[in-house]
């Protein structure tokens, strides 16, 4: 099962030459260097300096053809085309390792779906206080169909939303509200309901901020990982 999964994931992003190359590789090289080229009886080829220094087969091809008899590797008299496909496969495996820090939006649901949906629902209506603002039949209806799994998980952890609403009270007591444009130690700026921009020095006015996303941020210090996985499992049921 595990091996099938590895091969399946391996092939997911491979091109035609790489796929051909993998078949040839598994047949001729896999027994010693491992089916995914990460080593077995013989060294890991993904980490191999020779493979990393190779340019279009200039180093790998002679090695395949001549072998390394002193280290127990026989010669493989394979056709040029086959050797080039094996080179393409190895190059692609190196690239996979180089990009192993990409956790992409198409990250598989099966890997994220480890929680208990029922416990997630209880958290949603209970400790998480999510139901105070959200409803599974209202704003969240069909949410799991709308977002890919990884995006859904990260959206509830760190939602993107509109800016905070600021209310600025000037020295004369005038109050102006609007969407936050800028807020730091020294200045505050907002856009009012009519679309006009205003700014003030912080020490001349009072600023009150209302951020609808604050509840999400507060949860970041409260969640257990189980809460996150359960909540995710629950939200995934909202297709």
């Amino acid at each position, binding site marked *: 099962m*595990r091996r099938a*999964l*590895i091969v399946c*994931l*391996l092939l997911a992003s491979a091109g035609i030459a790489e796929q051909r190359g993998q078949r040839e590789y598994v047949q001729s090289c896999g027994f010693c260097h*491992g089916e*995914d080229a*990460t*080593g077995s009886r013989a*060294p*890991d080829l*993904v*980490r191999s*300096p020779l493979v*990393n*220094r190779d340019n279009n087969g200039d180093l790998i091809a002679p090695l395949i053809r001549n072998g390394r008899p002193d280290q127990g590797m026989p010669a493989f008299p394979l056709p040029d085309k086959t050797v080039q496909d094996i080179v393409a496969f190895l190059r692609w495996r190196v690239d996979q*390792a*180089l*990009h*192993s*820090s*990409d*956790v992409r939006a198409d*990250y598989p649901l099966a*890997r*994220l*779906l*480890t*929680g208990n949906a029922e416990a997630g629902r209880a958290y949603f209506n209970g400790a998480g206080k999510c139901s105070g603002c959200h409803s599974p039949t209202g704003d969240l209806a069909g949410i799991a169909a709308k977002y890919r799994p990884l995006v859904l*998980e*990260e959206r509830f*952890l*760190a939602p993107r939303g509109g800016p905070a609403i600021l209310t600025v009270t000037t020295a004369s007591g005038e109050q102006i509200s609007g969407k936050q444009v*800028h*807020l*730091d*130690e*020294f200045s505050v700026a907002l856009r009012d309901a009519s679309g006009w921009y205003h700014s003030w020095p912080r020490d001349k006015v009072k600023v009150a901020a209302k951020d609808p996303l604050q509840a999400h*941020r507060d949860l*970041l*210090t409260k*969640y257990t*990982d189980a809460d*996150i*996985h359960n909540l*995710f499992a629950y939200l995934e049921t909202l297709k």
Partner: protein
Amino acid sequence: MRLALALFAALVPSYAQGLDPAALAKTPTDTWPTYNGDYSGRRYSPLKQINTFNVASLTLAWAFQANSVAIKSTPLEVNGILYFTVPDHVWAVDARTGRQVWHYHYNSAGGDHIGHRGIGMWGNWLYFETPDAHLVCLDAKDGRVRWNIELADYKLGYFATMAPLIVGNHVIVGVSGDVTDIPGFLESVDPETGKLQWRWYTEPKPGEPGSETWPKDSDAISHGGGMTWMTGTYDPALHLLYWGTGNPNPVLAGDARPGDNLYTCSIVALDPETGKLAWYFQPSPHDTHDWDAVQTPVLFDADFGGKPRRLLAQAARNGFFFVLDRATGEHLLTAPFIETNWTSGIDQRGRPIALREKEPRPDGALLFPGSDGATNWMSPSFDPDTGLFYVVARRIYSIFYYTATGKPEGWAGRDHDLYEESTIRAIDYRTGKIRWNHELGPAESVAGILSTAGGLLFTGDAQGNLLALDASSGKTLWHVNAGGSMVSSPMCYQLDGRQYVVEGVQGVLYAWALPESMTK
């Protein structure tokens, strides 16, 4: 030591316009001769023309537009000339006027252009590391190349960003690169020829002390990472180098390398003549979150527990502040300097104990800090006047995914940031307690810190403001919106009776000073 310096000075043919090596061993005023200003890494200047009483009058002396990517380097300043870098580029600029003296462009064959910290100087020569992991020696007079050597093969994933440290006749250089599983090392080369003097590998060889902290039945130890990508410090009296090492590889894959994984994520003390290890301390044993321990090991002499001690302090990327005796490596203090959620306590040797369940998982583990760290390469500072250690601290909430399905190689996953806030914290080195806290608001600040005898702390926030704070209280005394974020560490010097504070903001170098009417 004085004899060694005199001997060394005699070996340098002429430094009429170059760097007098004696300047490296004292706290600078008219010179900033090395990445951290001096060997101690305190980033503390004894200059006080600009001080708490007059800093509100600070004004622009000049600006230099490099038309470059963000300046992350700290300039050197020697005999009125500033030398600073971005990847592939070195500039020499008049420190009084901001006018260009020369510019050098290097053509990298490849490598990573993520950033560059600066250069090292020995006599009339400059030492510049390149994105394709070469070391180039330039003539400081005109930027001409004297020689160029390869430190490591960029095709294997190595690159280089750090500012070399010069100790005696040793150019100490480190390397970067944790995308592939390659061994880290620190080496010393001859300043005249570039010839290798010694090389210290982060991972011991199988059978050597420390090798027992790696699995025996795999190739993990020879692919263990531990890059040396920040400039270390040096104690001339003890004649020891102090260096922080990077994270182990594969980065997030702890199960591929059970054990503490020495000497990754460690502070090591090395003999600068031989590269031999004197002692080590490991802030993050068996790291699985990219929390390398390359943050400056800051050296100062002060009382600890009622006794005068030779101390070394580090605010590490994992969120903990450490104090050691730098003669012996004896652990003295561990304290968190920001909220974290990955430990169950501190062990008997002063090391945080990592929670197994907070290792990266396929379905995500929520961590604070994230991989960007509670702090990172931006400089901390120690101010002997206040006795406070200053650090830019970040609350970064992040979810770590472990993605590998077969044998993990490279990163084997990554974390995604969920929310960030930053603050400047003043730590009492004797207790680890936070004496003052200056919140910087949302976003991840990467501005370094300079403290001065004027009672000031110079830094920036993540909203584009440069700041001068009262070093004893954290109160803001001066600020300016400089039109971009400071992603470098400030430095200062005094020339012709005028003190300049130099700060890189994106591709611009700003020099701040008091109005000339106040300095005459």
